[in-house]
C-alpha cells in the first residue's frame, strides 16, 4: 500500500480533547506525524489582562479539567511573586496537601484514560472509582469537585475542616491498597506489557532537547523534579523521592505515574503531620502590582513544569500574562516519539504522555 496521511482528530477517540494528529503511514508503520493544536483557544491570557488579580483565580482553574487546582495555584504564586506577598506557613502546608491530592486525582484520571486507550475498560472504571474519593476530599476542603477556586492571593480561602486529616488518611489507605490492585491488572498482564514495553521510546537526550518535563522526562531516566530542584512552598522541608524509570517507553511513563501517586500520598502524610497552627491568610495583601514588576514562576504540574510570566503596571490588573503549558511541549514531542512505531500504538503513546488540551490551547 502506498503511503497515506491519516487524520486523527479533531473528533477522534484517541485525542482526549480537541486536537489533530496527522500521521503518515506506510502500511501500519508511521513515517511522519504532525500535531496540530489550537482548536480550544479561549484567550485566557488576554482575558486575564482585563480582570483584577483575584478575579482571574477561577479562570485559571479552567485551564485544565484534569488538574484545575495546580493551575490556579500557579497563577496565585505568580501574583504573589509579583506583589511580594508570602503566604503564612499553614497556608503553604495546606497548599502542598491540596496540590498533591490534585496530582493524585490527575494521575488517576490519566490511568483511567490510558487503560481505555489500550482497550481494557475495566481499568477505566477502577481508577475513576478511587478518584471519586479524592474528589470528595477536595470537596470537603474547598466545596468543588472539579473546579476548586480554593487558593487566594496570600493564602487559602478557608482552613481545613474538622475531620479532614483522618478522612485523608483513610482515603490514602484505601488508595494504597487499590494501587496494588491496579498493578495486578496492569503489570501482571502480559498483554499490557506487550502493548507498552519498548513502545514509543523517548531517549533522554531527545527529551531534554525538546523541553519535555514532568513524568515523561523522568520516565526517560532524567532525575529532574522542580519540587526538588527549585523548591517552592514547603517542598524543601518534606522528604520524598524522585520517581525515575530508565527505558523511556510507555511502560516507564506508566510506572513513573504509579510511583508518583505513592510519593504524593507520602508527602500528604508528612505535611499533615508537620502542619503548624496559625493564620491561613497573609496579613496585608496589596490590590495592585508595582509598576515595572515582572516575574516568571514555575511549578511542578502533574504533567510537567508549568510556568507563568506576568508583568505588572501599577494597576490592579496584570499588564501581560503568558502561560507555558507542559502538555504543549509534550505534544510537540509527538513526532519524535511516534515515527517508527505502528498506527495501532498511537493511542498507547499519545495516551501515555498525558495530553490536556485546555492548558495547551489556553
Amino acid at each position: 500500500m502506498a503511503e497515506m496521511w491519516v487524520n486523527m482528530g479533531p473528533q477522534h477517540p484517541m485525542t482526549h480533547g480537541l486536537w489533530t494528529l496527522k500521521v503518515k503511514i506506510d502500511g501500519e508503520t508511521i513515517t511522519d506525524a504532525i500535531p496540530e493544536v489550537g482548536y480550544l483557544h479561549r484567550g485566557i491570557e488576554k482575558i486575564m489582562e482585563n480582570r483584577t488579580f483575584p478575579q482571574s483565580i477561577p479562570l485559571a482553574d479552567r485551564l485544565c479539567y484534569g488538574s484545575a487546582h495546580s493551575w490556579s495555584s500557579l497563577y496565585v504564586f505568580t501574583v504573589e511573586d509579583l506583589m511580594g506577598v508570602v503566604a503564612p506557613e499553614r497556608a503553604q502546608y495546606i497548599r502542598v496537601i491540596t496540590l498533591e491530592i490534585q496530582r493524585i486525582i490527575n494521575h488517576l484520571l490519566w490511568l483511567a484514560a490510558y487503560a481505555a486507550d489500550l482497550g481494557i475498560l475495566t481499568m477505566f472504571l477502577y481508577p475513576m472509582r478511587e478518584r471519586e474519593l479524592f474528589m470528595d476530599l477536595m470537596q470537603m476542603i474547598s466545596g468543588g469537585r472539579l473546579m476548586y477556586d480554593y487558593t487566594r492571593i496570600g493564602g487559602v480561602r478557608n482552613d481545613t475542616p474538622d475531620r479532614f486529616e483522618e478522612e485523608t488518611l483513610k482515603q490514602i489507605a484505601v488508595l494504597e491498597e487499590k494501587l496494588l490492585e491496579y498493578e495486578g491488572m496492569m503489570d501482571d498482564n502480559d498483554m499490557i506489557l506487550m502493548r507498552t514495553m519498548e513502545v514509543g521510546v523517548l531517549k533522554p537526550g531527545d527529551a531534554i532537547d525538546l523541553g519535555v518535563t514532568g513524568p515523561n522526562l523522568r520516565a526517560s531516566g532524567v532525575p529532574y523534579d522542580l519540587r526538588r530542584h527549585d523548591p517552592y512552598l514547603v517542598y524543601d522541608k518534606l522528604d520524598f523521592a524522585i520517581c525515575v524509570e530508565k527505558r523511556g517507553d510507555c511502560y516507564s511513563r506508566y510506572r513513573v505515574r504509579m510511583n508518583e501517586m505513592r510519593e504524593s500520598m507520602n508527602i500528604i502524610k508528612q505535611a499533615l503531620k508537620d502542619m503548624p497552627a496559625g493564620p491561613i491568610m497573609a496579613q496585608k495583601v496589596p490590590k495592585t502590582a508595582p509598576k515595572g514588576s515582572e516575574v516568571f514562576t514555575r511549578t511542578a504540574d502533574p504533567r510537567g513544569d508549568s510556568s507563568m510570566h506576568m508583568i505588572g503596571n501599577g494597576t490592579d490588573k496584570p499588564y501581560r500574562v503568558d502561560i507555558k503549558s507542559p502538555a504543549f511541549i509534550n505534544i510537540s514531542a509527538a513526532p519524535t516519539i511516534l515515527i517508527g512505531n505502528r498506527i495501532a500504538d498511537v493511542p498507547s503513546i499519545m495516551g501515555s504522555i498525558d495530553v490536556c488540551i485546555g492548558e495547551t490551547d489556553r
Partner: protein
Amino acid sequence: MMDLYELVESIVVMLIGWIDQWVPDQLAFLISPTSIHAYVVLGMAAVILVICLLNVVVMIWIERKFIARLMDRRGPTEVGFMGFLQNVADGLKLFLKEVITPQGVDRWVYVMALVLYIGSSITVLALVPMSDRFFMANVEGGLFMIFAIFTLAPFFIFIAGWSQNNKYSLIGGMRSAAQMISYEIPLMLSVIGVILMAGSLSISEIVNAQSSIWFIIPSFIGFFVFIIGVLAEVERIPFDLPEAEAELVEGWTTEYGSIRFGLIMFVAYLRGYVGCALAVFLFFGGWLGGPFSAYMPPEAWFLIKVYILFMILVWLRASAPRIRIDQLIQIGWKRLLPLAMLNIMIAVFLSAMGWI
C-alpha cells in the same frame, strides 16, 4: 421423541386442515404435500431464527450485567426485569435513527457487503442444532459447512471496509483480512483432533461420541487454540482489531449508521453465540447432561453450557486489552499453529492406541 420437523409439520397440517375446504381446485397445489414440505421448512427457519435471536438478546443482557459486575457497576437496571429489555430499547433507538449513506461510498458494494455479512452469519444458524431434536438441518459434513460459511465474513468485512471511502474503514478491513488468514488455519487444525476422536464431521455424532468423556480432557490444547481462534474470528476483545475504537474510530463499521450499525452489532453477538455453540459441541459434550441429563431437557443443558462459556469470554474481555496487529499475527503463526499441530499429534496417538 418428536423433533422440530414433526412439530412444525403437525402445526402446518392442522392449519391447512382448517382452511382446505375453502381452497378452490385451481389453487390445490398450494396444499399439496410438496408445498407443505416447503411451508414446514419455512416455518422451521422462522422458529430457529426467532429462538436464536431471542437467545442473542439474552446473551447481550448477560454480557452487560456480568461485565458491569466485573467493573464494579450495575449495568442496566431500569428497563424490564433487571434491565432485560434494555437491549430492545437500544435496538428500537437505532431503528428509529435516520439511515445515512455517506458521500463517495461505492453504494452497491457498501450495501451488499452488509447484506452478505449478515446473511452469511444467519445462514450458519440452520446448521447449528440445539439438541438432537431441535435442528434445521443435520447434514453429514455439518461441521465443515459451518466453518465454510462462518469464515466467509472477513471477506465481506474487507470489501465493506474498502467500499466506504474512509481510511479508518480501509485499515480495519485490511486488518480483518490479515486476522482471518492467520487465525483460520489454527482454528481448523485445532478441530481436527476432535474429528479424529469422534470419527465424524456431523455435529450430532461428535456430540454423541462424548457420552463417556468430554473432548476437552484429551484435547485441552485444542480447546485452548480453538477458543482463541474463535475470539479472533468473532472479533471480540482482545482481538477486535478490525473495529479498534481507540485508533480506528470504529474500524470497518465507521460509516454504517442507525439500524445498519445495530444489525452489525447484533450479528457480532450472533457470531459469538455460534462460536460458543461450536466450542460446546466440540469440547463440552453439546446437549448431553451426563448423569444429570434427566433433570433438564437437552436444549437447556446446551444453552447453559453456551452461556457459561460466553461468560468466560466476557470475563476475558473485562481483563484483557486489545493487542496489536503484528503481535496478533505473530501469536497466530508462532504460537497457535505449533500448538494446534501438537494437539493433532496427541489426538492421533490417543486414537491409534484406542484409548478414546
